[in-house]
């Protein structure tokens, strides 16, 4: 019997458990999936590893699309703590707002949040790209090691505290910078990188020249007693 991979599967979380949904998505028999009645449940579409697209019609809870590989997950609503946490590849789009720790520790892939992201967005980022249409909360990009965060709105307090080699671009105001995070010149290579990223994230109408770049001053890599006050 042949399976029609182009047909979309629809699954309601009013009728199925999250465990049943995720089991189906882990061994997918279709390329396109629609999830109804998410009701803020946790761990929806977590641990995917296939080139499928999943659309969730509503608000989701914690760790949605966590550990994602290759899949494209679209949330038509808000999401709770830790959206796309530890994502490896693929794409996650949130139409609404994201709670804290969006994209935490993500290694690869693209996370787009159309609304605002709360505190600790991109904490310990390890290579993924995050684009936020609105603003981000305090302690974002904390200890971010590599990857890129582009923020079309403002950033909260202590942006980029103890940041390593991740790049942060902010179009609006930054409430304050964290320890060892500094504003840096936006060179041509950064304009190109940011322009290309914004384009892919659906924000190609924005001028990369309106953003400011932030990154590590590299003074905390090795302990120096003169920097003790920075810790």
């Amino acid at each position: 019997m042949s399976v029609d991979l182009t047909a979309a599967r629809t699954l309601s979380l009013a009728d199925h458990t999250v465990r049943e949904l995720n089991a189906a998505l882990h061994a997918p028999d279709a390329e396109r999936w629609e999830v109804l009645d998410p009701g803020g449940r946790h761990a929806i579409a977590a641990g995917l590893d296939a080139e499928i697209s999943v659309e969730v019609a509503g608000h989701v809870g914690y760790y949605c699309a966590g550990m994602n590989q290759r899949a494209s997950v679209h949330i038509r609503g808000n999401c709770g703590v830790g959206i796309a946490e530890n994502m490896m590849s693929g794409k996650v789009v949130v139409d609404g707002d994201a709670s804290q720790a969006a994209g935490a520790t993500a290694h690869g892939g693209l996370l787009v949040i159309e609304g605002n992201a709360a505190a600790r967005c991109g904490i310990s980022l390890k290579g993924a790209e995050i684009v936020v249409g609105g603003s981000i909360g305090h302690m974002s990009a904390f200890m971010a090691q590599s990857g890129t965060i582009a923020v079309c709105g403002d950033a909260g307090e202590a942006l980029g505290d103890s940041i390593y080699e991740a790049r942060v671009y902010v179009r609006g105001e930054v409430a304050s910078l964290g320890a060892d995070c500094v504003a840096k010149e936006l060179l041509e290579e950064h304009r190109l990188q940011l322009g290309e990223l914004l384009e892919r994230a659906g924000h190609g109408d924005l001028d990369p020249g309106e953003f400011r770049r932030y990154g590590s001053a590299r003074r905390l890599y090795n302990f120096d007693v003169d920097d003790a006050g920075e810790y």
Partner: protein
Amino acid sequence: MCGIIGIFAKTEESERRLGEYAAQMLLQMADRGPDSAGMAVYRDPISERESKLCVQAPTGAALEAALEAARAGIGVETHHLIGERHALLVVPVPAEEAQHWFERELPEVAVDSAGRSIELYKDAVAPRDFIETFGLATMSGSHALGHTRMATESRVTPEGSHPFSTGLDVCLVHNGSLSNHNRLRAELAREGTVFRTENDSEVAAAYLTSKLRGGATLEQALEGCLEDLDGFYTFAVATADGFAVLRDPIACKPAVMAETDDWVAMASEFRALATLPGAEGATVWEPEPGVVYDWGKAAVR
């Protein structure tokens, strides 16, 4: 962990179904706090000459004896027994006088709340059992606060459950943990506060009571928390008129709010709000750290 819920009815229909709404929300927060549960419902205000008291005794026999003593001591107009150890009393004396009488005459009986409209029930039982035992789903009311507890700081006891009363018709629920509660407890005890538990949240409640007694508004008292409390917290505080929410500036502990034309609600997680009618179309947002949010009858009507 711990789970918090709060709901304020903006229509008569929501007031009529308030208990049902609050019970559904609390049930969703059951796995954030399976140790204990509690709820304060504001309903059926009584006259200024009377007061409503919610009491709990260590045993059913102790409750019977306490009721007997209260009838003789201050008079009891009506009483309603809930489960074995809890009762709602209406007494013909002002609430503070009634509270003092219980403290003096029946120290083993806890007065969980006192006022003109608050009814506060709590116990060290699973949230589902709590909702059934106390018949919460059938209650009407103007607003309610609820809590499910996963204890971290002190023992699991009926008295250590939330909400904590913080004065007449005022109560608090807390998700988090305070690190300077021992010092604050000592300071408040010197001022005359009597503590019934080792619980850090009881200290937060007593702190608010002390501020309110000193003439602070609820908003000022909550702003004081930002200065004087060290630790993690999402607080929800209810008064006779509405409720307020505050998250500490670090905001580790979650909170989500939602509003429609019919109700305003807050919860630790969205899945509690998702049970409410019209939740799909509600305005939903996460309260900012260190900002006091409040709703009163005047503010939303």
